[in-house]
């Protein structure tokens, strides 16, 4: 078991170094002529006005929150799905009840207009 996870860790590191290698090569091979204009922030060729930071809308938070709720629900449902072959019908219906309650939450969010991207 430990060997399997070692493979996963190794391949993640291999992936990261596969990206790091060309970037390092680029840093070595590329020209280095620093110029004040080159390191300015890009804004379609004109100068930036004001801060380079905007305040986000609250809608991003709501999407992230709904995703979090459904993610936790899925984590509960994965063991239920893995044990599906050994379950009886009433146990399957209990899982369906779980999903229905969360679908009710989604319908509430829909009716309250929390899913609009204004």
């Amino acid at each position, binding site marked *: 078991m430990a060997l399997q996870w070692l493979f996963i860790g190794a391949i993640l590191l291999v*992936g990261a170094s596969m990206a790091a290698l060309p970037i390092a090569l680029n840093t070595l091979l590329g020209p280095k002529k620093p110029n004040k204009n080159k390191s300015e922030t890009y*804004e379609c060729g004109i100068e930036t006005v004001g801060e380079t930071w905007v305040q986000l809308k609250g809608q991003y938070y709501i*999407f*992230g929150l709904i995703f979090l709720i459904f993610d936790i629900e*899925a984590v509960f449902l994965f063991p239920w799905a893995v044990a599906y072959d050994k379950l009886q019908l009433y146990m399957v219906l209990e899982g369906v009840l779980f999903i229905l309650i969360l679908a009710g939450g*989604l319908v509430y969010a829909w009716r309250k207009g929390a899913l609009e991207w204004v």
Partner: protein
Amino acid sequence: MSDPFGGIDNFLKDLLIGFGLDSTFVAVILKLAAAAVLGGLAGATAIVLIWVERKLVARIQDRLGPNRVGPYGLLQTIADALKLLTKEVLIPAGADRLVFQMAPLLVVASVIGVWAVMPLAPGLIGSDVNVGLLYILSVGSIGTLGIMMAGLSSNNKYALLGAFRTVAQMVSFMVPLILSLLIPTLLAGSMGMADIVNSQAGLWFIFLAPLAALIFFVSSIAEVGRTPFDLMEADSEIVAGFHIEYSGMAFGMFFVGEFVHAFTISALMAVIFLGGWRGPGAEAFPLLGLVYFLIKTSIMYFVVIWVRATFPRIRIDQMNAFNWKFVTPLALVVLMVTAIVDKLAIESGWPRFLVHVIANLLMVVGTLVILRTQAAALRRRLDVVPEAPVTQPETA
């Protein structure tokens, strides 16, 4: 010939033990070498993929595509890579250097990490953990993090906005993705990828759960960020999005990451719904299994490119409405119906395939009926308002 991969493994193991090394140490070294080979191959396929995509999109658009550099333009990608290698690396003033440089690494690592659990042939899987599907979902999230870091550290309003829009899109479409992946789990009785392929011995899952396959496919395309969901790199909207400030090979790594991600989801589609390496004679000759896997993945990749070359881009509010008001409720309904119907079919002894096909057909008909009534109601609402004539008719 019946087990070439096991044969290579045993040969290498005997070779290294013959050098006098401890056997667990040898196993660890072989695993690490296999990880390096698989990771390297997965990244190197990008060179072929970019050429395939450019040629295919060109032909669909009735033009030729790259055909100057090398025979049929095969060396075009290498020429582009060499060009990117010799560009100057610009880091904008005020950018967060460490985070800025770590972002492309995370994006590429998350894509290559998925190949660790991909069953390529009978007996050839990198890491047979029994939580393969959930691992794929969690590794995909590292890419989302990389994009967020790229946007945050660029010291640029548009990179910030683009990165957060991208993250919102990817996070929104993860919900139907997770829900649709629950269905192969309950059909196969396990989360491990090798088990999912093994349990498609009788019938591929795309015949048992076609709607789930469709939802998975559409959500994956939205996750990767290809057309019609490619707001992330919409040049007309937010000036190249989160990777505005990246130049040279760092930008190239984002590019490569996207292409390899598209290929990876085609492979996932082939493994989870089309039976992976299954085919006539695959158990006897594992190399044939590898060939079947590559053929199925290429077919799905062709469909992905076909979709890209055909559909226009949709707006972000259309995309959000599509996700939250159509795909997610559909995925929930499909999950519930499939769970109940499968258990009923097994307990009552009805033929499984027929029951699932009828259930999916009913769901498709139900969805179309609901969409039609909604459209009719909308049209009725719009027709009630009388239209004022735009111009007065000229009277003599």
